C-alpha cells in the first residue's frame, strides 16, 4: 500500500506542477495550435482543394492536435525529470519506498495529464470553430493513449540522459517537430511524388497522425491496424526503456 500511496502523490505532484505553470504548459501550446488552425485552415482553407472527401480546414485539425499533444507529453517529462535531477529533489523520490515502476508511472501521468488537457482544449475550440467530427472514438482513444505513452516515455528517457536544457530542447526541435511537419499533418502523403511518399512510411509520427486522423475523420492514408501497430511497437519499448532506467538506476544514481 505504501508504494501505491507514493505513486498517487507523485502523480499528484506532477499534475500540480502542470497546473501551477498553466500559462506555459497549457495556454501557450493551445494558442499556438489554434493559430495554426486559423492561419492554415480558415485563411488558406478556401484556396486549397479538399483532401479526399474532407475539407482542408477539417483535415488538418487531427494532425495539429496530435502535434501539440505529443510535443507537450515529451516536453513535460523531459523538463520535469531534468529539473528534478538538476535540483536534486529527485533524491527524495529515489530514496522513498516506491517501486521503480511506480516512479515511472507517476512521472508518466504528469505528461499524459498535460497532453490530454491540451488535446481536450484544442478539440473543444476546433469543434466551435470548425465542425470536426469524431467518427471512430475507440480508435481515437487507443491512438492518443499509445502516442502519449510513447512521447511521455521518450521525454522521461531524455530527461534522465540530458546533461543540459539544450539536450531536451534539441530533441524537441530537431527531431519531433520536423517529423511532425513531414508526418502528414498538413497533407495526405498520396499527394507526394515518389520517393517522398515511400520515405514518409519510415516516419513513426506519420503512423500516429494517421491513427488519430482515422479516429476523428474515419479515414487515413494507411490501415488503422498498421498505424496502431507501429505506434504500439514503439510505445512499449519506450516505456520499458524508461522503467529500466528507474530500475537499474543508470544515469539516475552514480
Amino acid at each position, binding site marked *: *500500500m*505504501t*508504494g501505491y*500511496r*507514493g505513486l*498517487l*502523490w*507523485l502523480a*499528484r*505532484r506532477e499534475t*500540480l*506542477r502542470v497546473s*501551477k*505553470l498553466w500559462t506555459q504548459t497549457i495556454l501557450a501550446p493551445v494558442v499556438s495550435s489554434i493559430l495554426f488552425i486559423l492561419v492554415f485552415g480558415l485563411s488558406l482553407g478556401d484556396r486549397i482543394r479538399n483532401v479526399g472527401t474532407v475539407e482542408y480546414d477539417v483535415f488538418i485539425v487531427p494532425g495539429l492536435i496530435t502535434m501539440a499533444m505529443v510535443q507537450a507529453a515529451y516536453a513535460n517529462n523531459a523538463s520535469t525529470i531534468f*529539473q*528534478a535531477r538538476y*535540483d*536534486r*529533489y529527485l*533524491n*527524495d*523520490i*529515489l*530514496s*522513498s*519506498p*516506491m*517501486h521503480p515502476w511506480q516512479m515511472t508511472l507517476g512521472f508518466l501521468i504528469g505528461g499524459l495529464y498535460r497532453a490530454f488537457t491540451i488535446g481536450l482544449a484544442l478539440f473543444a475550440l476546433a469543434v466551435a470553430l470548425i465542425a470536426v467530427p469524431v467518427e471512430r472514438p475507440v480508435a481515437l482513444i487507443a491512438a492518443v493513449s499509445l502516442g502519449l505513452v510513447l512521447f511521455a516515455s521518450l521525454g522521461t528517457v531524455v530527461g534522465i540522459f540530458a546533461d543540459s536544457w539544450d539536450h531536451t530542447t534539441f530533441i524537441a526541435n530537431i527531431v519531433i517537430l520536423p517529423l511532425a511537419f513531414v508526418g502528414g499533418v498538413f497533407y495526405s502523403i498520396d499527394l507526394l511524388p515518389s520517393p517522398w511518399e515511400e520515405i514518409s512510411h519510415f516516419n513513426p509520427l506519420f503512423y500516429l497522425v494517421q491513427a488519430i486522423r482515422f479516429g476523428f475523420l474515419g479515414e487515413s492514408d494507411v490501415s488503422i491496424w498498421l498505424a496502431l501497430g507501429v505506434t504500439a511497437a514503439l510505445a512499449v519499448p519506450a516505456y520499458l526503456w524508461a522503467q529500466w532506467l528507474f530500475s*537499474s*538506476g543508470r544515469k539516475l*544514481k*552514480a
Partner: protein
Amino acid sequence: MAVGLRRRSPRGAPSSLIEVFRGDPPALELRGLTKRYDDGTLGVERFDLSVPDGAFFGLLGPNGAGKTTLISAVCNLIRITAGEVLVFGEPTSSLRTRRWIGLAEQDINLDRFLTVRETLLYHGGYFGMERADAEGRADEMIDLFELGAKAGVVAPKLSGGQRRRLLLARALMHRPRLIILDEPTAGVDFELRQELWSTIRRLHADGTTILLTTHYLEEAEVLCEEIALIRGGRLIARDSADGLRRHFGADTLQGVYVKAMAG
C-alpha cells in the same frame, strides 16, 4: 515532541558497552561496502561499520573521504559495487527499510514548485503516509521548525536558514527510526546552529538513531556519543571522543583529527 520509538541510550558509556546495552539488530550495518564510480574513482572500499540502535554517531573525514558515498549507499542513491547495507537488520533493497530512514542532504535539494507545507505533505505521501496523518505531521513539523509564517511560500523564496530548517523537517516528516544528517549546519549562522543542535538532541533523547557527518569537530564532540574517522574510503578509527583522544595521545579532537588524517 513525539518522534516515534524509543529507547534512551546510556550516554557516556564506553562504546563497547553501548553495543551490549542496545542489543541487535543495529540501526545500520555496512558489510564490506565497496563503491567504485563509473570514472574509476573509489568512493569506499570494503567498508564495515555498525551503528547501534539509538546511537548518536558521527562520521568525520575530509572532503572526498567517502562520507557522502556511505550515506548515498544507505539511502539508495548510488549503485553499490559490492557489499551489503542493512538497516535494522534488513537490506536496503527492501522497500520497507526506506521508510525507516530520514535523510537531510548537505545540499539544499527542495522541490522548487512546492510550498513549505506541500513539501512536507508530498514527502509524507511519497513515504506512504495517509493524508490525514501527513497533514497533522506537516503542521507539527511547521510548528517545531517555526515555519508557520512561511507555510504557503515556495522553497526558492525562503531564506537560507529557513530552507535548512525545512530540509530537516522533511527528513523527520515520516517519523524515521534512523536519521542521516549530512553536514546539517554547513553555512548556517551561530543562532541557527544552536537551534538545530537543540532539535537534534531532542530527537536523540526520544530514542532516534542519528548518523551525523560534519566538518565541525566541535559539533561532533558536543553531539556524538561515538565518532568514526574515515579517510580515502576506509575506516581509520572509531570510538567516543575521549577514547579517540586516548588512542591518538591527543588533548583535543582537533589533535586526533590531524594525527588520524596525517597517518
